[in-house]
């Protein structure tokens, strides 16, 4: 069992609307509890960063939010995930619908070995959208949103794998946006990228914030402080502190958080 650690969670402002929240979310891998009851509330159209060391459970938490942990046979997820007043962590909830509304971008760019266009239209076609004109519109619109359109508009039929790493990641963002999700989960989307590509992705995220609620896992504390409105600090499977980002990095309430953000860890 986890040791009792001091924690602090600042409630969202009264007028803030919540896009997603969890109550006592726990994840077991087999007999081992990897996540010890996390309760968080994510404000609509804001960016929330999840920070913490490797193995702190932040990625596990993120992957539970769109039920991607269901694909791991040994994982057991308990607790509530409230989305539009529905607990989506129930077996009778359609996971395919959940993932349509809560999109995900992974750490490693993972485009399909298909053309750029097909990468974006893949999921739409699976859902029965066949109208070529409409598909073309969505391809253009999402690529523009992901700031990739100018670079690839003449090569839409080229293989996505011919793109650079940063371009691939932006394609993956465009692909996720094509489903018109409410929420975008990003699992260290820039950790495999060079600084310039990272800066591009961060700019893109600021643009996306207008229409999407973004939850991002990051190892990079500068990145968290640059881009996010809220930050949650995870430590050994526990959520230690949740607050507005500037407060986390200037006046954290918990000693452990202070140690981590100032680099004096352990």
């Amino acid at each position: 069992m986890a040791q009792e650690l001091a924690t602090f969670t600042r409630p969202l402002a009264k007028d803030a609307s919540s896009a997603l929240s969890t109550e006592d979310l726990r994840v077991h891998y087999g007999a081992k509890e990897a996540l010890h009851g996390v309760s968080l509330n994510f404000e609509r159209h804001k960016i929330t960063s999840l920070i913490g060391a490797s193995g702190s459970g932040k990625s596990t938490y993120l992957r539970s939010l769109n039920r991607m942990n269901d694909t791991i046979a040994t994982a057991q997820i308990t607790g509530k995930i409230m989305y539009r007043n529905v607990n989506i962590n129930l077996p009778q909830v359609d996971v395919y619908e959940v993932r349509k509304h809560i999109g995900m971008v992974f750490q490693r760019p993972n485009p399909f070995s298909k053309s750029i266009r097909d990468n974006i239209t893949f999921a739409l076609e699976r859902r029965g959208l066949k109208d070529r004109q409409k598909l073309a519109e969505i391809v253009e619109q999402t690529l523009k949103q992901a700031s990739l359109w100018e670079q690839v508009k003449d090569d839409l039929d080229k293989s996505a794998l011919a793109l650079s790493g940063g371009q691939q990641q932006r394609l993956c963002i465009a692909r996720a946006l094509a489903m018109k999700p409410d929420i975008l989960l990003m699992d260290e989307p820039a950790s495999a990228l060079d600084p310039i590509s990272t800066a591009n992705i961060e700019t893109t995220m600021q643009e996306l914030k207008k229409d999407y609620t973004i939850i991002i896992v990051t190892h990079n504390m500068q990145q968290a402080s640059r881009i996010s409105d809220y930050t949650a600090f995870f430590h050994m499977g526990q959520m230690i502190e949740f607050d507005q980002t500037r407060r986390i990095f200037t006046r954290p309430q918990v000693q452990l958080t202070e140690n981590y953000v100032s680099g004096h860890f352990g």
Partner: protein
Amino acid sequence: MDPIAKSLKSTSVSAKIERRGKLITQLCTMVIVLLVIAIFAFIASKGVAIFGQDHGSVLDFFTKTTWNPDKQDAYHRPLIGALPMIVGSFAVTLLSVIVATPFALAAAIFMVEISPKSGKKFLQPVIELLVGIPSVVYGFIGLVVIVPSVQKIAGGSGFGILAGSLVLFVMILPTITSMSVDALKAVPRYYREASLALGATRWQTTYKVVLRAGAPGIMTAVIFGMSRAFGEALAVQMVIGNAILMPTNLASPATTLTSILTMNVGNTIMGTTANNALWTLALLLLLMSLIFNIIIKYLAKRGELK
């Protein structure tokens, strides 16, 4: 003289052992390569003899249907029309692969995507067992079970391409299945995650992403199956009827290159026209397996680029 400087200039024991080991592996490799070259050269020289010293016609070999190398036609050329065997070989190969591939793919999808646990526990041992059964046993079962069944359903004697294909179907099923399993397993996990995270169902993910990404590997599996079917001799020979006739339907007695070879090679004398004609069949088999291998290499290379 400085002992370290001295040791630097002389050859140490380790260096000698290293050199010896390298020499031994190189020798062994060379023996194998020479062996393969020798086999190729031997079969090739024997295989073309019928066209040289016996004045056979290459065109006749591939287009005529009368196989009687001891006899000659009006132009004093031996009757070496191998078309019935060539057609027979390709027919059983293609038919068995067409029947086996859907089953093998279904089994592979079950083992990798749907139920890896029970797949590993039940299906895997069954498939390994199928590989271990000697071909003469397959042939025997074919003779006792399949031939009479075909006879009942299609009439005739029951011997023929259909019976041969059905026996081969069971024989190549494990090959195609286990190689398809490898191909599907090699599809990275993040492809599946990418698709699932977009809200695609498991079947959509399997069909549209995993199978597509694994396609070069699956093609390789199918070609391997074809290669095995093409080269199988004994089991096919037991059920195909061994009549050197152009097959008119799937249930009429026919033959394959391998059956004719195994049936007749003991009944001819080295150096005679009849013997040379058989070598030509062997050469054709060798070339076909070479072609299959080239296709496999090509597919593997194309798969790597993705």
